[in-house]
């Protein structure tokens, strides 16, 4: 099947700063593509170019058959974006925002009312539909923003951090509705910095860091691509002495050791069960007290760390 979105060397510079750096990425029709990366990775800027809000500095993106640098008006008709920051004026009410949005997207009046009611009820904000935006909580405003696209049901639906500030129940509801939209045939791009969200929703995940695409694949395969099939996390009471990582690397099945957090090392290795006694032995020999030792499967965080040397949390802070 031909991809419905095709980014070709997509680049955006703001002055001398490169926010999106030569992105080459294709999105298949009918999939949910997770765009995962820490704050500042360039996810939102990429989305704004897909939505024809920003013009690429270099390269382009094809939305269906349309090149956004040449046929922006046609490209725009296929896309709907639920923005990261809710786009509401203080005086707007959820009802008026959604009604106007649906109207401008060409929905006839009966269908409009039916869909808006359904989405507002599903998201639990039907009761506040006539309140003005300034009296609504951040989570509610975010739901209104997401509701726009759930009402519109565009061919290509883009959600920029759709559940930031939304409570757990709301999160699951939104995830369910995004899946439903995909099942009806929409293609979905989901930008997020939450590993779990990307993991549970996406068919494929594209990981971005500092404007660059690091890798794009199915979550399962991303995790499998981590050298060593297992991860052992060892936490210490105090800091981690430099020589510990050196010594750990000498254990034959160990592939990689990284000091993920201050008091913790992550050991990527094969056959953890064989290596565990040797790790314990080593710590004992060095006179180090381990607070905990945990064996797990690699997560997306490990995938991110593998490519950047940083956990997502650390990358957020920079």
């Amino acid at each position, binding site marked *: 099947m031909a991809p419905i979105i095709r980014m070709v060397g997509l680049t*955006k510079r*703001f002055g001398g700063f490169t926010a999106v750096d030569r992105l080459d990425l294709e999105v298949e029709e009918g999939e949910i593509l997770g765009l995962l990366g820490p704050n500042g990775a360039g996810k939102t*800027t990429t989305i*704004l170019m897909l939505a024809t809000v920003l*013009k690429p500095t270099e390269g382009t993106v094809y939305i269906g058959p349309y090149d956004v640098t040449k046929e922006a008006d046609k490209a*725009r008709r296929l896309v709907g974006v639920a923005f990261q920051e809710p*786009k509401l004026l203080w005086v707007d009410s959820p009802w008026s925002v959604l009604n106007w949005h649906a109207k*401008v*997207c060409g929905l006839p009046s009966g269908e409009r009312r039916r869909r808006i009611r359904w989405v507002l009820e599903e998201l639990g904000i039907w009761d506040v539909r006539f309140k003005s935006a300034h009296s609504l909580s951040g989570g509610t405003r975010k739901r209104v923003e997401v509701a726009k696209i759930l009402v519109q049901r565009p061919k290509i639906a883009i959600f920029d951090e759709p559940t930031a500030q939304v409570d757990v129940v709301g999160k699951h509801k939104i995830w369910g509705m995004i899946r439903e939209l995909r099942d009806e045939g929409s293609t979905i791009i989901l930008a997020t910095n939450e590993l779990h969200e990307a993991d549970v929703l996406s068919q494929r995940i594209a990981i971005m860091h500092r404007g660059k695409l690091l890798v794009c694949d199915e979550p399962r395969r991303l995790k499998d691509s981590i050298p060593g099939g297992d991860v052992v996390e060892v936490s210490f009471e105090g800091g981690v002495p430099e020589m510990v990582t050196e010594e750990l690397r000498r254990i034959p099945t160990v592939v990689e050791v990284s000091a993920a957090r201050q008091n913790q090392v992550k050991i990527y290795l094969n056959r953890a069960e064989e290596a565990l006694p040797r790790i314990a032995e080593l710590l004992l020999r060095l006179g180090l007290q381990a607070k905990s030792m945990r064996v797990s499967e690699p997560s997306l965080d490990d995938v991110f760390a593998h490519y950047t040397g940083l956990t997502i949390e650390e990358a957020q802070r920079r």
Partner: protein
Amino acid sequence: MMNPKRVWVVAERDVRSLLRQKSMLAMRVAWFAAQVAFFGLIANYMFREDVLAAMGGSYLEYYVAGMVVTMLYSTAIFIGYDVYEEADHGVVEYLLSLPVSRRELVVGRSIGSGVRSLLHVGPMIVIALYLTGTPSALQLSTSLFCLFLFAFGASGLSITVAAALKSSDRFDILMGVVDALAVRLSTALYPVAFMPSYYGGLASINPITFAADLFRWGAGLESALLTPPLLAVVGIVAFSSTFTFLGVALYERRLEGGGWR
């Protein structure tokens, strides 16, 4: 090509915002009524017969018609402030992402702002017509349509300048200066007969003059006109199309570059 339905949906959003400005509307109508009842009436007594003749016999009538046009102009300019408020809330990006072309967006908003401005000065138009009367319903509706075209053009001007400046402080200053000069260098408040010739030259090509002339024509103050109505219409159409065109071009170029933030 523009789709009229989409243009109207865009326009409707700005028209509807009129409902939120009820107290402001009341305040401006009260200000207008007081200005006419005091200044207009008293100034009328201050002029000699031959002076009044140059204004069609009554300064009060001349003044009230001109005031309507200046109020219409300053109301239409408001759309620029809306553009800034939307930029502050990030709504610009939302508007740019909608399945609407840039031309439909700018034209729709200029129409919306034009209609909104005309409705806003509606009560003032009623006060003015109460004082002046009108020769015929056809003449009046033609002249009101021209006022709409003028407000449409002034809205395009405001959107153009807002998109070009991107700073609401600079916009405020520039539009304040333009407002002060454009109103004073027009025949809105006094006829060209009393202006020094270098002012008169500018006044005779000023869209505010054209609009004032056309409203006076609709209100039956024909002896007070500077420009023949047909020429004034041409002037207003030229004014409106220039700024609609510039508005579309600038809105697109400046905003999509991403330098708004």
